[in-house]
């Protein structure tokens, strides 16, 4: 029975993972920005959980990085320790708006990269001290290669990926795992503007299950669903002088 803190808990993928963790008997501390949505998720898990499981929550805007240390301490206190930190907050930028505004671009980098790196740093130091723990971060296939349609988001996710690599390398000797989840297209409110037809689209429930599995085995990097590993290998193999002319 693990003690798990989930940041960005109202995201569809995080909420699905929370339900899976809860079904496994874990205790959860959920952090989200929207109090009402967070409450709906907490109520649901409170009905599902076993008598000795804890489900608690805190409302916070994770872009305010000064709150991070306090939230981690709060999670540890409520759960009586901490084994897993799932970092899932993020937003899907309007690429065109970002191109027109440095401010919008940096705000997206802030949400999707800096706030993640801040939390991962703090959690990493805690886990290093206790010589045990798992950090799980939601990255994206978009972080594998920059594309004109979505490179601000991609750059943030790419930064997170390289940060996680380094952190993983550093913490390996302390028995702490760092897992980067790279979902492909997922049918969530974040992607509501897209046409969800087609076999490439996965449901958040399926991604939630894969996250729980990857966490349990302390995986390094996981494409969810796995076929995205193949797709991205092909995309990565295209030489840049060809790639730059493609419309992707």
């Amino acid at each position, binding site marked *: 029975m693990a003690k798990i803190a989930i940041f960005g808990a109202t995201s*569809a993928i995080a909420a*699905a993972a929370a*339900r899976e963790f809860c079904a496994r008997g874990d205790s959860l501390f959920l952090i989200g920005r929207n109090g*009402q*949505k967070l409450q*709906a*998720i907490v*109520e*649901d898990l409170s*009905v*599902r959980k076993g008598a000795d499981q804890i489900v608690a929550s805190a409302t916070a805007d994770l872009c305010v990085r000064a709150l991070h240390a306090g939230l981690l301490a709060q999670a540890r206190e409520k759960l009586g320790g901490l084994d897993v930190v799932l970092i899932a907050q993020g937003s899907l930028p309007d690429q065109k708006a970002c191109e027109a505004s440095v401010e919008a671009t940096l705000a997206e980098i802030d949400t999707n990269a800096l706030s993640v790196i801040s939390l991962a740093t703090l959690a990493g130091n805690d886990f290093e001290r206790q010589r045990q723990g798992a950090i799980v971060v939601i990255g994206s296939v978009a972080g594998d290669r920059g594309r004109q349609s979505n490179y601000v988001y991609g750059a943030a996710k790419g930064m997170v990926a390289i940060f996680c690599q380094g952190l993983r390398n550093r913490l390996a000797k302390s028995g702490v795992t760092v897992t980067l989840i790279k979902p492909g297209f997922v*049918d969530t*409110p974040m992607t*509501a503007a897209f046409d*969800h*037809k087609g076999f490439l689209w996965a*449901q958040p*429930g399926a991604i939630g299950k894969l996250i729980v599995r990857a966490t349990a085995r302390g995986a390094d990097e996981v494409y969810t669903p796995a076929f995205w590993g193949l797709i991205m290998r092909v995309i990565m193999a295209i030489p840049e002088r060809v790639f730059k002319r493609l419309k992707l």
Partner: protein
Amino acid sequence: MAGRGDGGRVTPLSWNRYPRVKPLRVAKLDFRHDPLPPLNGAPSRLAYGQGRSYGDVCLNAGGLSLLTRGLDRFIAFDRAAGRLSAEAGVTLDELLTFLVPQGWFVPVTPGTRFVTLGGAVANDVHGKNHHRAGSFGHHVSELELLRSDGERIVCGPERNREWFEATVGGLGLTGLITRVTIDLSRIANAFMITEGKRFRSLDEFWALNTEAERDWPYTAAWIDCLSAHGRGLQLAARHAPAHTALPLHRPRVRKFPLDPPISLVNALSLKAFNALYYRKPLPRGPALSPYEPYLYPLDAVLDWNRIYGRSGFFQYQCVLPPEASRAGVAQLLNGISRQGAGSFLAVLKTFGDAPSLGLLSFPRPGATLALDFPNQGARTERLFVELDAIVADHSGALYPAKDARMSPEMFKRSFPNLPRFLPYVDPEFSSSFWRRVRER
């Protein structure tokens, strides 16, 4: 979570896959606190849950279809009192998976467990225990309705009762049902005691039925409507008492894998099926059985509706008042066999006397007969017109949740409370069914 019985269809259809109409747009609902999605040019909205009704009560051609399956959270559960609140997109299947091991059961269930709570309320569904338990609405203590003007109306039998009466059986027209609180039934385990009896004629059925209603909380009859006298099986059940040893049970799920170019249900296959089913071995006396095969025989074959092919099929379900039941049911069955039409699943049951709560609720005292027919175009419609005449003649009613073709007159006749219902219809909610039966 969902998975089973979902199909993952992009275009919302109803279970009989007729009519094949498309909404202008669909919008997925994720949180019950969110405001309704804007119309953006669509003339109206309508909630769509699991699409398990047979016809067009869940369809909104050219409008906005609100997919409610994202509202799948529990809200509160009082384990001691058996009272549960959940969002409207939770299915009875999910409820049962959660409740049964804890000793609770849904108080009323239709013949499939893949319906949502919202759908169960909006159609005020009934089950084999209607003569004891009434319909679904009798067990709802509270629900929340989200109106297109943004107002949230919390209603129940003791609070804003007029809104409750309009919404129970209100076909989703009074607004979006966001959450529902129901009172559950206590059970000791996942098993039922069942008893099946053969009858060779309708007369025998009526005698058996009186007995079964008196002795059993669940009962319904399957009728071979190809036979001249109306032979069939009376199937009764109750939840099993506590046992110290129960048989192992592993539910098997099969899936009907393809869309045949034409319906596989035809005169020949029907005759064979009905003859076999009538002769299916029945245990002597009451027997212990898991609840699924008794309550949900069809749920064992996912996507069984595909057997009728692309043109789909029709359900025809009517209720006839008690004094007209015997003569009326005999006439209906006669009419069907005269036309050489036949039905796989003719189900006959008598409703109890408890008055339904909803203004447009279908269940009322009398006998209800449900049949399904492959869609053979004009030929099928001719049969229905004949059946309609018999139903109207006996002051009966048709069930909107099973209808794709009733006339506005038939609808008006079936629901005398219609004028009282109209003021509660949300101006921005509508359905293909509603537009069809409100035409003049």
